[in-house]
């Protein structure tokens, strides 16, 4: 049998990059926070958790997520802040905390829960407890909004 000595480099070419009509998402500012604000928020949340003000800590953690930020570490830091708040809740208090949130905050919380399912599968049990309560309030629509989100939280 003859050996194929031709190059297969062509298989690694990104064809879409050469397509003039290739769809690209808008690179718009969406009012998200920068690194400084995320660190500031992490400190404030830690403070509230130390005072056992878990509901206020949750609301603060879900404010203004760094959605458009290109720096992955900033997003990681905000994610850690949210997870630390979720961990501090007792199972019985989750209901009351979720009832306090409006639809926008519910959507942000749902996005973090799904991020948690992928990044921290060891915490899945507690995240699922939250998921059940959030779906009761946000409905399947909040899950759909996590799926269609193109920017990633």
């Amino acid at each position, binding site marked *: 049998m003859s050996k194929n000595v031709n190059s297969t480099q062509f298989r690694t070419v990104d064809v879409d990059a050469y397509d003039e*009509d290739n*769809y690209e998402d*808008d690179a718009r500012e969406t009012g998200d926070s920068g690194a400084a604000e995320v660190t500031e928020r992490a400190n404030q949340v830690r403070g509230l958790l130390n005072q056992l003000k878990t509901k206020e800590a949750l609301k603060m953690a879900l404010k203004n997520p760094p959605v458009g930020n290109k720096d992955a570490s900033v997003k990681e830091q905000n994610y850690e802040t949210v997870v630390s708040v979720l961990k501090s809740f007792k199972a019985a208090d989750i209901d009351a905390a979720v009832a306090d949130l409006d*639809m*926008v905050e519910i*959507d942000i919380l749902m996005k973090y829960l799904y991020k948690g399912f992928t990044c921290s599968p060891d915490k899945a049990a507690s995240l699922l407890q939250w998921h059940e309560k959030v779906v009761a*309030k*946000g*409905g*399947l*629509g*909040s899950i*759909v*909004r996590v799926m*269609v*989100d*193109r920017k990633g939280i």
Partner: protein
Amino acid sequence: MTTKTEQQLFVGSPVTSHAFNGALDKLVVSDNSTTVYIYAKEANGKWTKETELQKHIERVKCVDWAPKTNRIATCAGDRNAYVWNLNETTGVWAPSLVLLRIERAATYIRWSPAEDRFAVGSGARLLSVCFYENEHDWWVSKHIKKPIRSTILCVDWHPSNYILAIGSCDFKCRVFSSALKETYDKPETSGWMPKLSKFATMLAEFSTQGWVHSVKFSPSGDKLAWVAHDASINIVHMDNHDTVIRSLTPSLPILTVIWASENSVVCGGHDNFPSLFNIVAGESVSKGIRLDVKEKKAGGGMSAMARFKALDRTGDDTKDASLDTTHQNSIIELRVVKSDATGNCSQFSSIGMDGKIVHWDLDALASSISDLKI
């Protein structure tokens, strides 16, 4: 008063598009095939097949009936659209080809309010506005291309006949001017078009997180509503483009929207039932009121045959496999059937992926559902 009348039009295929004629006694439908069917209403209220219109060679995506001039427009995946004219003496519908000049499938077609032109959306990322050219006896098109960047899913005409709203897969809803000099249009300025703008000028652009499935101007044309795949309902008033009333619904994505009055919309989609949403104080949208009232099945329970079938298949003979909604699958399109002069809808119809067409009576529903206020 019956709140709804349902009919299983097709078995095994969805009803992908429908439109009524002016007298509401004929219905044109497509069943996701290359054939278009015209149904006539019998004395007992049921629709029966009257004619088949066969000209397209790919799936028919959308149909529309111009009520006053009695013409049918159809568009299909074969990149063509046809305008069908009825020969009064022979009763035969004759097609005339429309030169769309598109390289992809046509996805949506709508006659304008004056019925002298129609708009065709396509996968070629452009909209064709087609009008009749007398000298050559054919329909010609002009394109609206920039800045649309993906397939157009829905189009709606403003009552003035010169403004269009387009919803597309690039997550945007846009409003364009479509005044043509070829037809000697004399548009007037309005809230949407403060300065006279020529054809294809973009007048407004709104973003969502998902594909825009349906877009509709309110009966007066002052407000615009659109629904997207991120399960949201968005409404904007022409005077203030920055304040979009956005309702993040807890339901599955909505596929179609119609205005029930100047301040309320009826939506249907993947949840299989139509719901009514009111605009509260011009600022927010109320919770959706489900218009499909769950009725207890008469005769209580399943037939013996159904029981054994269910027992064989799932090992459980207590649950009926059908859904408790009238439509057994997603609602694809809603149409206003009857409305008064101010645009208050009293009857509307829905078609679904289950092959059913359901006729809903809003007045009867208003009296039967206790907290329904339109």
